[in-house]
């Protein structure tokens, strides 16, 4: 293992070939430190949703490039990102994940801060030096970079001069648009509860798996096979949604080849949906879907509503660590803890103005696919950990992502499309090399 500072750009480039990547990208702590600095420290990173920050004082605690940060709405209505650390003695200030508070008080010596980070009061002021100034920025909670939003999604960026958020998101704005446009009231709320899973593997493994269309036939056989043996529509609580979701992973090779994958500059990619039956599609006979479509028609007009619903995507990867599924209102945020430890925050959204049952289905989707007891995702987690365990071994340092390399189609805008292809991983690593070797903005 080498020290991060000694990794030259040439050494970084040498880790990625068109069809292979060196195992060191997943196991070297020095590489991980560089990723925090150059990827998570320089790109726009999702940190909160505006529905969590409705009024001044509302806050969310999260992680940004290895730092704990608070995302707050200040008295002027502006959204801020602040390091969760008291500038006095360095203690963490806020110990809850979300809430609302007009003042943040450090329990150690009772310095009190406003939601914009400024210092409101210190007790026993006269014991501090004469030149101690409440307005001196060095006595404030430190800003954690810049904040920008896109249709309710809040991103932060630690770079000095980052490009505009929309430029980073590129075509992925369409995915956020599609999620929000599905709401008859034109807004989505992030559901308050979700799941947090930790796996003992590198963060990139999950981002790659989420864009991998070929593994379900093998990894998810243990949920496909019981679903095939189970009688249809037997459940009294979920309109057969769990069984349908488990069944869908049982496609044959030919069917998986029909699922379009598209890769974009910047590491993003999209995947078409492969859920084709039952409550997972809005069947004509489904009274909930009928009510929902009527509500959406009323807002958007039938033509536009039909176009919104026709955009059927599954896992959309917003590089580096956000996964959005607009059709089923699902979100995953992948948070790197260490080179071999990762958190996955799994949440869903409520389409405002839609029938309550539509939200219940999103919650059911979350439970079936994202719960720690999920009969699907638990097998993914097992594979991510086995990959990490295998990659520790020094023998044969190159691993393969060549599938589809000869059949991918490239257009003039730099988009690549493929079927049953590992193209999204190649697209992710192309962005990885670019970011890891770029000068600070």
């Amino acid at each position, binding site marked *: 293992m080498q020290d991060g500072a000694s990794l030259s750009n040439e050494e970084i480039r040498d880790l990625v070939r068109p069809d292979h990547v060196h195992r060191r990208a997943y196991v070297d702590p020095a590489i991980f430190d560089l990723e925090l600095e150059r990827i998570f420290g320089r790109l726009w990173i999702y940190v909160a949703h505006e529905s969590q920050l409705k009024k001044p004082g509302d806050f969310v605690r999260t992680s940004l490039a290895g730092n704990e940060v608070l995302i707050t709405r200040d008295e002027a209505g502006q959204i801020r990102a602040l390091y969760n650390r008291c500038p006095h003695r360095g203690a963490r200030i806020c110990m809850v994940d979300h809430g609302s508070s007009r003042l943040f008080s450090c329990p150690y010596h009772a310095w009190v801060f406003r939601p914009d980070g400024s210092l409101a009061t210190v007790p026993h002021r006269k014991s501090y030096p004469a030149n101690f100034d409440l307005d001196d920025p060095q006595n404030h909670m430190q800003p954690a970079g810049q904040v920008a939003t896109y249709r309710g999604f809040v991103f932060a960026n630690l770079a000095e001069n980052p490009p505009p958020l929309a430029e980073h998101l590129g075509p992925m704005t369409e995915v956020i648009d599609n999620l929000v446009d599905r709401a008859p009231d034109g807004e989505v709320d992030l559901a308050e509860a979700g799941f947090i899973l930790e*796996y003992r593997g590198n963060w990139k493994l999950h981002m790659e798996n989420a864009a991998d269309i070929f593994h379900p036939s093998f990894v998810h056989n243990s949920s496909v096979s*019981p679903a095939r043996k*189970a009688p249809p529509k*037997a459940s009294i609580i979920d309109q057969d949604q769990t069984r349908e979701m488990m069944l869908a992973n049982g496609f044959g090779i030919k069917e998986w080849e029909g699922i379009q994958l598209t890769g974009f500059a910047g590491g993003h990619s999209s995947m078409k949906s492969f859920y084709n039956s039952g409550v997972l599609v809005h069947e004509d006979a489904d009274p909930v879907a009928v009510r929902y479509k009527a509500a959406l028609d009323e807002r958007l007009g039938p033509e536009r509503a039909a176009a919104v619903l026709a955009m059927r995507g599954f896992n959309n990867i917003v590089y580096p660590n956000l996964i959005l599924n607009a059709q089923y209102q699902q979100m995953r945020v992948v948070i790197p803890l260490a080179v071999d430890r990762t958190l996955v925050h799994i949440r869903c959204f409520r389409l405002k103005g839609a029938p309550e049952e539509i939200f219940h289905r999103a919650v059911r989707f979350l*439970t079936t696919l994202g719960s720690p*007891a999920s009969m699907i995702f638990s097998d993914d987690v097992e594979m991510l950990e086995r990959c990490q365990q295998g990659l520790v071994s020094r023998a044969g340092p190159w691993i393969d992502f060549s599938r589809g390399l000869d059949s991918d189609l490239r257009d003039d805008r730099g988009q690549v499309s493929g079927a049953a292809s590992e193209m999204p991983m190649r697209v992710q690593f192309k962005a990885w090399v670019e970011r890891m070797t770029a000068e600070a903005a």
Partner: protein
Amino acid sequence: MSTAEMARAVEAFILREARLLDRGEFEAWLELYAPQGIYWMPSQPHQTDPLGVPSIMYEDHAILSMRVQRLLEARALVLTPMPRTTHLVSNIEVEDTDGDEISAQAAFICVEHQGERQRMFSGRHAYQFARENGSLRIKMKRVDLLNCDGVHAPITIPL
């Protein structure tokens, strides 16, 4: 059946459930549930809504049957090697033994060993039973994990 006899029957039922899970007799375990029975493991402390708030598990007999199949036959990757468990159930309190509605609560610890890892789960159980032809079946089992809203690794064997 006297109240004391009923309390003993409920205790024996709960301990039998723990033993069936420890022995991997998942089909017999599922038999303990009424056809309309539900197993509920909330994701939040004091959760009251199983539909609008996600649950770690909210499964009826039909979904539990698929889970049992997966545990027994399907060789799930995450069940390789098969975990071994000790389900300890204690502090059993039987309530409402009048009529056919019987409920009970208990505290549990489950130690799970798999491969190189040993883990511990703990929390409280709340049972609602139905009496069918003199025998007990579970209408609802609620499992409140201490760390329900914490950071999780995959959970495979029911608690």
